[in-house]
């Protein structure tokens, strides 16, 4: 029988799970499906001293770093495709405010996998013999990885230790009230992040009736058993995009990137778009609905329909 318990909660209630000093991982990559509305809400609330356990959630990392909310970062790559470095994040590192622990993408994924699978370590064939495993960041280098021989005598691998985030924040396409979550398009590292994290908070574009999910169960990226709370946040990934709904807002990203040259202009940007907005709805209204609707994708192309090219 269907469970009568709903996991749909208001944004602030869901984010009460994120406390100062906790470790956080976030979904998304490049300019796609990053949980930006939740990130803005955390910044508005003044979250502090976070440890990121990140893979490719560049915008989340940059915004949190710009807000002075990041203390440490385990990660593999934060950069803005088509723009360049995440300026506030790198400045935090270059001034010593943010301590880092580098990985390759797969190395980071393996550490999350180890946690998610309940294993003491995960072997991989990358990172070996490089400074990633030789040069210590804030972590005891011997506790990060070891080059080990297989007990079966069939080779040597790098073993990495588990990383278990306190909270994963994820933005997806749709969910039902029970907390089954679906996503279209590329899934970044969401499955590993959700399995690893102690608490999983998901924001979605749409809440759907319970009978929608079982029609295409293969689209379900997170079953309800992995999800602690669901927040309904249409355009909740803005200014990044959500596959099947809307593209990233290139103009907005460009505006941020220009502002991020300096901390004071970044602060002004945040004042306008985060601190001066009472909630997600006022943020969307400040952007204007018409601007958001212009980001809608075409059903066949999957992107904003621009002039069609026939080659």
């Amino acid at each position, binding site marked *: 029988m269907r469970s009568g318990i709903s996991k749909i909660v208001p944004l602030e209630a869901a984010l009460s799970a994120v406390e100062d000093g906790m470790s956080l991982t976030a979904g998304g*990559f*490049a*300019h*796609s499906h990053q949980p930006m509305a939740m990130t803005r809400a955390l910044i508005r609330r003044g979250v502090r001293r976070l440890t990121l356990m990140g*893979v*490719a959630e560049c915008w989340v990392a940059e915004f949190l770093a710009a807000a002075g909310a990041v203390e440490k970062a385990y*990660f*593999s*790559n*934060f*950069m803005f*495709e*088509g723009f360049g*470095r*995440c300026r506030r994040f*790198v400045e935090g*590192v*270059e001034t*010593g405010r943010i*301590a*880092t622990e*580098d*990985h*390759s*993408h*797969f*190395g980071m*994924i393996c550490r999350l*996998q180890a946690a998610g699978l309940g294993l003491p370590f995960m072997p*991989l*064939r*990358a*990172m*070996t*013999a*490089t*400074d*990633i495993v*030789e*040069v*210590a*960041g804030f972590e005891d280098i011997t506790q990060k990885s070891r*080059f080990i021989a297989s007990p079966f005598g069939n080779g040597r*691998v790098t073993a990495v230790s588990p990383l278990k985030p306190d909270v994963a924040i994820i933005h997806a396409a749709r969910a039902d009230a029970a907390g089954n979550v679906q996503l279209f*398009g*590329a*899934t*970044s*590292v*969401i*499955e*590993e992040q959700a399995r690893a994290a102690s608490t999983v908070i998901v924001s979605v574009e749409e809440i759907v009736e319970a009978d929608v999910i079982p029609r295409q169960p293969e689209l379900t990226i997170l079953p309800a058993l992995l999800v602690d709370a669901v927040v309904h946040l249409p355009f909740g990934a803005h200014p990044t995009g959500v*596959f099947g709904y809307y*593209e990233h807002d290139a103009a907005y990203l460009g505006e941020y990137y220009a502002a991020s040259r300096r901390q004071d202009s970044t602060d002004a940007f945040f004042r306008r778009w985060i601190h001066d907005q009472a909630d997600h709805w006022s943020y969307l209204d400040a952007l204007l609905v018409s601007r958001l609707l212009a980001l809608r*994708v075409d059903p066949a*192309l*999957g*992107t904003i329909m621009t002039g069609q*090219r026939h*080659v």
Partner: protein
Amino acid sequence: MSEISRDEFMAVAAAREFRDGDVAFIGTGLPMVAAYLAKATHAPRVKLVFESGIIDAAPRELASGVGDYRLAYGSPKIAGMSYALSLLQGGRIDIGFLGTAEIDRFGNLNSTVIGPYRQPRVRLPGSGGANDIASMAGRFVVICRLDRRHFVEKLSYLTTPGFLSGPRAREAAALPGSGPSRVITDLAVLGFDPETKMMRVEELYPGVTLEQVHERSGFALGVADDIAEALAPTDRQLHLLRHVIDPDGRYVVAANV
């Protein structure tokens, strides 16, 4: 329009690195253009895997990156980053392409920091998939401008393994891939001496001298015995680059008319 730009030479040189039937791991930029050029010409059976988890897409227009939804068009399989990287570790990827901030004579790369690791002078984006590709792809190609800022005697940080310290070092580290096969620059195409694993000049673009190449490297480059002038792009390749694959010159800028 018939004058050929350095970008076009680089694109064509990169395209040549594909063998028909290769499964290639592709990132943003010039490698994307080279991959589509190869597929449209000598290597139609090349299959592409993108870091974002998109497999073998057939985009109608050039994507602005591996996260661009344009890249998903026509893809028969869209998964996640973990899936794409698992294919790499599983030995399914024949060739990868990498850019870099620094490269040394053994083809090791740095995309992490300039200066010390803690509180660096310049914090770079980090390895991302670069280390994974260099460690685990069958072979990899580096695309990089040839100058002393990029070609350095010693890396600030070894993010991504080339031949590490030289012969047999990759074997000692149990890295499954065979390492860098080519370095494509704006002046010349470089390769590696099979014995010493040190970088050497193999092809020069028309009008480029060996002296110019040596002058712009921060370390001593070897020279291949059979050094040759790089093959000029064919008319068909130029047509594809300029009118079909990258008509807006996003990654491959045509020469000024």
